[in-house]
């Protein structure tokens, strides 16, 4: 759409659905004046697949594979959220070893998601090598997870009441080796990316999010932690085995793009700490609860369960009316709220800055459109 408004001197530009940057199918309508953006409007819906409608026509077991496809980068956390919600409905307690396993695998998945984000973000900014180093590290994680779950991206590993398979010694040895290796690689990432003056000039002083905006738009995850609010569901409303571990929540001070990048980088280090502690303290025991009904038919009730994913708070709200199929499942995805602050941040920026801001939000479009 090319319109030249002679009086106001603005023109429309389309950051089209087919995007060189790896966010998915997002369209941003820009109204520009010369080089600067006066208005930005994200247009979503290109990837709508009807997950919530599918939930109404499948029983609880059959909906399990869908959760991995909502956000494929941190599929295990979404899987965990759904299983925890149904376990709440049925009143099942998960054995301790299964909880530890769930934490270990979810944290590995979080590191993989953050690694991919770092690589893809730098690809947006024009550096072509960090993405390949990140994918090399990510390949190690995917191989480890492949040994246990059998899948590399869209895992369907947790079940109601526990997990399907147990760890073996090779996995534990592999994870310890990986933890050591990644800690050594952080230094390389620092030298190549974090301390690079070109990157700092592009990321510092761009895309400030204030604390009021965080509350108004319902932002969660590294977006609020970059602005200085220490909100992490693993600490505020602990679930699963997280109370047993000692880890910090990294926060930034100013809320610009660089702070969000540093928060995610440090979160990877904290996840490594959690995995180490979990492997040290791993208890013996069953990996599946004893009395799990084969036909899941919960009583007439509602439940809400929130988990902390790599992008923020994922909430799942199930309304059951006593049938084998849920009446309604509502998925509250973090990227939807995170994207909604873009129009406010994009005013009076260059297009290059818009790309930097959009990348720093870490949105996964398929989960916005569900």
């Amino acid at each position, binding site marked *: 759409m*090319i319109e030249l408004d002679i009086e106001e001197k603005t*023109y429309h*530009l389309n*950051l089209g659905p087919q995007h*060189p*940057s790896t966010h998915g199918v997002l369209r941003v309508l820009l109204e520009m004046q010369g*080089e600067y953006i006066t208005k930005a409007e994200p247009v979503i819906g290109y990837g709508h697949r009807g997950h919530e409608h599918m939930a109404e026509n499948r029983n609880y077991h059959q909906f399990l594979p869908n959760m991995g496809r909502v956000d494929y980068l941190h599929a295990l956390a979404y899987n965990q959220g759904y299983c925890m919600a149904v376990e709440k409905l049925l009143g099942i307690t998960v054995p301790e070893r299964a909880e530890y396993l769930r934490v270990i695998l979810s944290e590995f998945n979080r590191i993989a998601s953050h690694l991919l984000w770092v690589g893809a973000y*730098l*690809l*947006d*900014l*024009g*550096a*072509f*090598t960090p993405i*390949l*180093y990140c994918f*090399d590290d990510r390949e190690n994680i995917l191989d480890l997870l492949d040994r246990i779950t059998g899948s590399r991206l869209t895992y369907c590993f947790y079940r109601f009441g526990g997990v399907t398979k147990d760890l073996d010694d090779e996995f534990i040895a592999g994870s310890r080796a990986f933890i050591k290796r990644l800690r050594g690689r952080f230094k390389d990432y620092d030298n*190549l990316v974090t301390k*690079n003056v*070109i*990157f700092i*000039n*592009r990321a510092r002083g761009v895309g400030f999010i204030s604390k009021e905006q965080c509350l108004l738009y319902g932002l969660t995850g590294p977006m609020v932690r970059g602005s200085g609010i220490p909100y992490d569901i693993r600490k505020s409303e602990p679930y699963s085995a997280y109370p047993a571990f000692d880890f910090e929540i990294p926060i930034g001070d100013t809320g610009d793009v660089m702070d969000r990048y540093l928060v995610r980088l440090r979160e990877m280090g904290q996840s490594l700490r959690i995995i180490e502690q979990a492997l040290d303290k791993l208890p013996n025991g069953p990996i599946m609860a004893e009395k799990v009904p084969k036909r899941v038919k919960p009583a007439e009730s509602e439940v809400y369960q929130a988990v902390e994913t790599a992008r923020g708070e994922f909430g799942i709200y199930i309304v059951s009316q006593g049938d084998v199929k849920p009446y309604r499942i509502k998925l509250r995805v973090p990227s939807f709220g995170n994207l909604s602050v873009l129009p406010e941040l994009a005013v009076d920026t*260059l*297009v*290059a*800055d818009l*790309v930097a801001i959009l990348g720093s939000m870490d949105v996964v479009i398929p989960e916005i459109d569900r």
Partner: protein
Amino acid sequence: MELLAQYLGTEVGRLIVGLIGVMALVAVNALFLIWMERKVSAHMQLRLGPMEVGWHGFIQTVCDALKLMGKELITPEEVDRPVYLLAPIVVFLPVFLVFLVVPFSSSIIIKDMNVGLLLILAFSTIAVLAILMAGWSSNNKYSVLGAIRSVAQNVAYEIPLLITVMSIVLTVGSFRLTDIVAAQTSYWFVLTQPLAFILYIVCATAETNRSPFDLPEAESELVAGFHTEYSGMRFAMFFLAEYTNMFIVSAVASVLFLGGWHGPLLPGLIWFLLKVYAIIFLMMWFRWTFPRVRFDQLISFAWKILIPLSFANLLITALVLKL
């Protein structure tokens, strides 16, 4: 052979043989450089690059060129036809002509002009005109944006380039390239003027539109820049011009700073080529390490940092020469 030597003695004969040699060099150079770029980038990224065609993918570029030649030359409807068709030629021609004065070794030089360096600097500015022609005639808003940015970038980085080269000329006292090479028999100028060398490399990277200054061509933000509307062989001309431009600026760098064709055992030509390709490797190393610089930061970098530093270099050189 006698006839050839006699022919080479005459001016016209020298020019014609030289031009044929330059055409061959440009073609082979582009093929080699594209292969080198792919291999260097691949190994920096822990992968292999082209491996299938020929030994380690050596013939890959030939296959790509053949594919490009088979593509349809699409001319959009509303373009400014003469300008559109001339732009690839104008971008390529000056690069060609610069080869007239480059000294490949003590005997291989087509025309040893006494204003050789000035000719090189003058001709490399014509490329900017070609970019503007390409962007404007494409009748495409994004191309015009890309072309305007490219012109601003090129003009901004010309100035520190010229001033840096001036400090070398001041030391030697002549524009003739063979004189500059002859003045480096005992030590290379990179040792006495390291700041000038660094400034020259940075400005050269910006002049050839290479990363981290590659906004005009690798706009992953919007579109492909000024050569969006060109397809097939016309696009290949822009590409060829860029790689040949890299060769030219590296050749000038090796002549000005690294002693041209001086070197111990091997013949002068081999040393010259080694130095040129070493500097090209340096430029490729830059591309695969750094992210892109934002446009306003690029211009402010040129005006606020490079120009003062190059002036300072010139002043210090003048002072030292006086003393």
